[in-house]
């Protein structure tokens, strides 16, 4: 567990802090995620390689639940990634993230904002539309094309 923490705590904490913008709340989520791993050693397969994508997703889900002050929507045991980013090791992950961050920086601010509001703030598409004043269809398309840009950025590295 200590090794898992050393390797993955930064990813988990970063995602939790990105969503919650509160160090104490992020620490709580960090604690909760690793305790879930401790209680459910069969929840992950140590031989599957890089756990970072899966941990990032379950952390995001739990943090958004916390942010929206709602009960956890999904059990981490039920959260799966059947198509994972091809990140064999931490070095690969580091290079891929540089590409993703670059793609986020390069995309139009409104598109990046829509993506981040949806994913890191847990807003529904109608809430985003209401907050931005943009049509629903526009928000939907921005989000989809934004995700496609991230995929393309990693595929062309």
């Amino acid at each position: 567990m200590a090794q898992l923490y050393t390797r993955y705590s930064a990813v988990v904490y970063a995602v939790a802090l990105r969503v919650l913008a509160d160090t104490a709340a992020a620490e709580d989520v960090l604690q909760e995620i690793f305790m879930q791993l401790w209680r459910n050693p069969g929840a992950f397969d140590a031989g599957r390689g890089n756990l970072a994508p899966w941990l990032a997703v379950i952390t995001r889900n739990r943090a958004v639940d916390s942010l929206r002050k709602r009960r956890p929507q999904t059990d981490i045991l039920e959260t799966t990634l059947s198509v994972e980013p091809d990140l064999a090791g931490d070095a690969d992950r580091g290079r891929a993230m540089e590409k993703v961050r670059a793609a986020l920086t390069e995309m139009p601010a409104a598109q990046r904002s829509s993506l981040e509001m949806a994913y890191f703030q847990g807003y529904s598409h109608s809430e985003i539309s209401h907050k931005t004043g943009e049509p629903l269809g526009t928000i939907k398309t921005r989000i989809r094309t934004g995700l496609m840009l991230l995929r393309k950025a990693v595929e062309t590295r």
Partner: protein
Amino acid sequence: MSVHEQFADDLALYALGCLEGDERAALEKHLEECASCRRELEQLRGDAALLALSASGPRPPARSQARLMEAIAKEPRGLGSVAKASGARWWAVWGWAAAVAMIVVAAMVWNQNAKLKSSIAELQGLSEQQRFELEHARHVVDTLTAQDVQRVDVMQVGAKQPPPQGKAIYSRQNNGLIFVASNLLPLPAQKAYELWIIPTKGAPIPAGVFKPDAHGGAMVINPPIPAGVEAKAFAITIEPEAGSTTPTMPIVMLGG
């Protein structure tokens, strides 16, 4: 991409968890029936993981690790409170218990099997011995009672024809009696010889009715007699063919 265009945008929102209401319900219904849209959804979830991983920031404070290790120390692994995982662990415990039980049962069966094999080998040995003895005894009886049996008195050369005589071989312990006679005189019609055991105490005991063959030979093998009779002598009388319960005088042959 072979995704249905009308659902393309909604799939992306669904992957990020921000599609709600009727549109979410409609998409979920469509996903049940559309494999290509399910594949694209999985791909989009992978893209969302990239977005999650893009988050960067400071490392967690050192106190977080200390707090985690303290919590772990208080909660042994495998005894958590998550119902789903708890069920899995219990199955694991039962699995070990079942494995141990299987080993114990297997050892017991192996031990019992070894004993049974030993008993079977012992019984097989005994059976083989009994089979050999039975075959030997049957061969003796078959020879003595064969239709072509020849009973010949071998005597000193030049000696006279011997008188009627018989030999009784009796074992009280085995409750067995064999009587072999030769040179018996022919019997009147409807008469037969009868063998008697003369016990040390009590009346004579009938021990079989017999008729001599054309050469005067005869044999009685293990007639029905009471057990444990102490024999003092053996006698032969002439009786009706059906035999008698008491000897009819005179005794024609006697030995003891």
